[in-house]
């Protein structure tokens, strides 16, 4: 079947870095700011988003030829809401304490723009294979975004990573080196600003290297 638009592999690679949902598209900022105070919560969120995104992309791609254009957003939301509810219930059943810590942020995946954006941009226009690769790539990109934020915040705020104390903080003096602010909302904004700046800086350096004639 001839398809217009990017191939599955292109979609997959684009999602990870060139079109990273967090650092390039700035989508899904609510979980990025809210659940990145610890690595465990961030990765649970990344897993839940990946599940919802992959399932929603597959379903939307399967029914894309029967979609009425003016009803498409309704169908996207319906699909996403179903999988979010499933993810929420599964977490409450098998990861009860994490589910309690994440609180309303799991149900709020419904309004994560990343998912509806992928349904609109890719799944409603391209085949199942492309849509699946796209979803996996974007999910990985989102997970990388959350992981960088969460690593920075958890290390600075608690001196731990995935709940494991870092060796240089062991002992009684550890309290001194904890920057509690990084675990609080202001810390989320600081981290996001610094990381976004860093990503933009690296991208601009790369551009300069590739095309020096465009400089200035």
């Amino acid at each position: 079947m001839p398809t217009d638009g990017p191939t599955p592999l292109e979609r997959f690679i684009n999602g990870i870095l060139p079109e990273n949902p967090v650092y390039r598209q700035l989508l899904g900022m609510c979980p990025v700011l809210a659940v990145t105070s610890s690595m465990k919560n961030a990765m649970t969120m990344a897993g839940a988003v990946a599940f919802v995104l992959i399932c929603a992309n597959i379903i939307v791609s399967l029914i894309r030829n029967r979609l009425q254009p003016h009803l498409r957003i309704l169908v996207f939301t319906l699909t996403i809401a179903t999988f979010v509810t499933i993810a929420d219930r599964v977490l409450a059943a098998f990861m009860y304490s994490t589910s309690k810590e994440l609180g309303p942020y799991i149900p709020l995946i419904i309004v994560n723009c990343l998912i509806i954006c992928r349904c609109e941009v890719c799944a409603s226009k391209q085949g199942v294979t492309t849509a699946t690769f796209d979803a996996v790539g974007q999910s990985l990109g989102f997970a990388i975004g959350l992981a960088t934020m969460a690593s920075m915040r958890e290390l600075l705020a608690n001196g731990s990573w995935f709940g494991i104390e870092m060796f240089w903080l062991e002992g009684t003096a550890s309290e001194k080196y904890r920057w509690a602010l990084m675990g609080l909302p202001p810390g989320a904004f600081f981290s996001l600003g610094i990381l976004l700046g860093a990503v933009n800086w690296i991208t601009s350096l790369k551009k300069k290297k590739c095309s020096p004639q465009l400089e200035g």
Partner: protein
Amino acid sequence: MKNYVKQGWLVVILALGFGAALAGVNVALNPIIEQNQKNETYEQIPVLVLGTLVDGITKKDMKIVGNAITISKAGETVADLKIRRKLIETADSEYTVYCVTGSPRGGWVITAEGMGFADKIKALVGLDTEAKKITGVYVLEQKETPGLGNKIVGPWSRQYSGQPADKPLKVEKRMSKEDMDAKDGAIDAISGATITSDALTTIVNGAVEQFRADLKAGKTNANEKSEEKK
């Protein structure tokens, strides 16, 4: 009409399909989720009733079967508790009483609820068998300010244990170590979160007072038959 059907059939079919799928998920997972919620309360009961007697006990040492909790450490049984649950209706709301019996000692655990600084706080309060002393307080749900008010979840709430239950507790700022050890009804406020400390203490006071009145009136005698229905 025909036009509506033509345009909307996919939405209707999807909604029905998704609805059925969700119902299936709910049927399969709801018992597990309810058990999780029950266990969350039950896991706290030994700590609330037995206090320091179960220091160093982890969840792994605890075995919850039905309404019985057994705690064993290194092959020895530390505690063997039986729990009876009863819902008590008050004038404007209701709360749950867990009557704990067994060895090494029994007691009561009651649920307490009220407004905190940010949102509702839900807590469990442990009392001794005669409801004369508070044996522990555990916060189940709270959305207080992280880093300040949410300290009520941590070791701070240990100062409630050993406090008298026959007079309302009072929150005081900057208490000395001796005053805190005296356990004469004063609670040391969390610095930076006086409102939260006040709120939790008020919630505990209210719940304890209500429970003591109900205990006197004999409302707490768990009725086995009504118990089975729940």
